[in-house]
């Protein structure tokens, strides 16, 4: 109700809320990590061979991209704290750009596999046996869900950038920007787990 006009602001509460939300995100992926571990245990050899087909350089580049983007959004928080609106927006722009590059790489990676007829439900994949079906099923599902989180994060950051332009996020009220940063770090963190699970452990 709009009666309570006096400002009630509790930044710690907002941040606590965000952290709790991040817990739920971790558990969301946690369920998938359990499924991954079980099937890796059952199909150790097939997972080993299938993982070698993924491109480590592309994965590494994407990891570096996300790490840098995490740094830029953290710097954007510092910039707004120092009242440097322009720099903060510039750094957010960088973050969004890096996120888009990540998605672009992902697009070409997926495209490459799909061109080779490796996708869930394809007869070629089915002919390669159950371990490969599960590996690629998990690969598409987990990286797909992660990409969806990247997209949500980008929209969130775009929305935050608008608030900075409109001076709704300023040097003494920037908890929303901080929360978007927390969310972006989580997306980064999940990738840090996905990368070794799919690309490095062979």
């Amino acid at each position, binding site marked *: 109700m709009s009666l309570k006009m006096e400002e009630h602001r509790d930044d710690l*509460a907002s941040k606590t809320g965000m952290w709790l939300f991040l817990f739920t995100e971790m558990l969301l992926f946690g369920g998938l990590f359990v499924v991954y571990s079980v099937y890796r245990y059952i199909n150790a050899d097939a997972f080993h061979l299938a993982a070698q087909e993924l491109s480590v350089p592309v994965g590494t580049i994407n990891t570096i991209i996300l790490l840098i983007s995490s740094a830029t959004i953290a710097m954007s928080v510092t910039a707004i704290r120092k009242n440097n609106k322009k720099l903060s927006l510039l750094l957010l722009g960088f973050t969004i750009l890096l996120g888009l590059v990540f998605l672009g790489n992902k697009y070409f990676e997926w495209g490459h596999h799909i061109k080779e007829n490796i996708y*869930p439900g394809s007869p070629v994949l089915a002919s390669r046996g159950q371990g490969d079906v599960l590996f690629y*099923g998990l690969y598409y*599902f987990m990286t797909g869900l992660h990409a969806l989180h990247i997209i949500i994060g980008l929209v969130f950051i775009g929305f935050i950038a608008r608030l900075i332009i409109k001076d709704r996020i300023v040097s003494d009220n920037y908890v929303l920007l901080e929360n978007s940063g927390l969310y972006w770090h989580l997306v980064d963190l999940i990738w840090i787990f996905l990368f070794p699970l799919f690309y490095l452990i062979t």
Partner: protein
Amino acid sequence: MSAHEGMQEPNYLEFKGKYKGIYSWIFSTDHKRIGLLYLFSILSLFVIGATIGLLMKFELIAPGKTIMDAKAYNAFFTLHGIIMIFAVVIPGLPAVFGNFMLPLQIGAKDVAFPKLNLLSWYLYVAGVLMVVISQFTGDQAPDTGWTFYAPYSFRTAGNMLPAVFGAFLLGFSSILTGLNFLVTIHRMRAPGMTWLRMPLFPWTLYATAWIQLLATPIVGITLLMIVAERLFNIGFFDPTLGGDPVLYQHLFWTYSHPAVYIMILPAMGAISEIIPTFARKIIFGYKFMVASSLLIAFVGYFVWGHHMFTANMSGKALYIFSLLTFLVAIPSAIKVFNWISTLYKASIYLQTPFFWAMAFIFVFMIGGFSGLIIGSLAADVHLHDTHFVVAHFHFIVFGGTGFAFFGAAHYWFPKITGKMYDALWANIGLTVFFIGFITLYMPMFFLGVAGMPRRYFDYDEVFHTGNIISTMGSWILYSGLSIIITNLFVSLKRGVKAPADPWGGSTLEWTIPSPPPVENFIETPIITKGPYSYK
């Protein structure tokens, strides 16, 4: 005609905000109005779910087809399960009475994130709409039961996608409610309200909120995997593609067993409010009540395997899950002992909410003990998937949560509406409801022991007598339900005006006028002692 006792503060029902009419409700971020939005949505769905139950019981009045065939029966028990579990009992007490009473009981103006609170309700409505859509589109209604077991859930011709996605949205709504309550309890308690001065209903909401937050994402991802399985044929749980259907059961129950504690903990909390108020005594063993709530929430995470005793788990896992299942009974028993001890040498004020609390303890005990029977390995092999399990479950969830819900509804009715309900009709309703409940579910225990399986529209002639009694019970129960609900609605119009504290309650919500002002507390209360401080 009201609200001018010195103060010009309008109550939340009369308050004129930015919007008018229905919009003043569906766009309101006032926790009290959102609580009532939930109350009306949940009550409507409850009546629908109960009517489906009534029809199913009518089908079972005689062997063979009475009013519906196997397909219709399967569709009905699926819809009954989805509505009652995901849309009624899980949000039931937290979203209705939690929303309304939590800020009042801890002396806050609202929950921590009022807009998020409203969003939760919209997600809830969206989830329910998806379930409705699943019934009226596609070739065939969902027919898997509320558990969506693999691999049937992605092989059936039933219209599963909207139903599964609806359950996902309802789960998301539940997560956000839990998140909101956690932050509210951590950050918004009135000055002086230390953790151990907090009433027990907020304490159970706190324990519940952790379960909502930490268990629901698991079922969320599991349901998404079912969606992906149906759309893209991925093979997570499909044995022909290398997947493992038992893994689905593990993931599903990792959430859905703790979900049972989402249902029952706030119910226990409401009972823990009612009993000291009508016993005029401080609750016996306050700290043990707090600890047992947290313990139930914690141990509740580790017992999911008892739903799968016949699903071919390893022997060691079976023993451990069975042992843990017995352990989780201890904190529940502590609560029952403490409620009973509170009544010892108390000067009891006999009113409808107190009768509901007593009825709750009675049916909850039967539900709890029958749970121990199916928690033991050997007995479960015989009783698994029989009517015994259906009876046990309804004694806990309908008898436990349902009774507590109606108890809480009568207890807080004067506070929420500013009117008193008609006590005579309320007691008649309760009596009829109680007789109906026992007549409906008690025979199911015997039918289950005799071997009648659940989820069939048909049965062998030997089970006929028990089923006739049970079906007649469903009519009595439904009549009782109609009396209770009608009485509350009639009282809303004709009831006498309620005072601020009709029961002599000692928690904060009774210190403010009924119905509460928009801002809840005109002055922020300062807490100097624990709850239930009667002399």
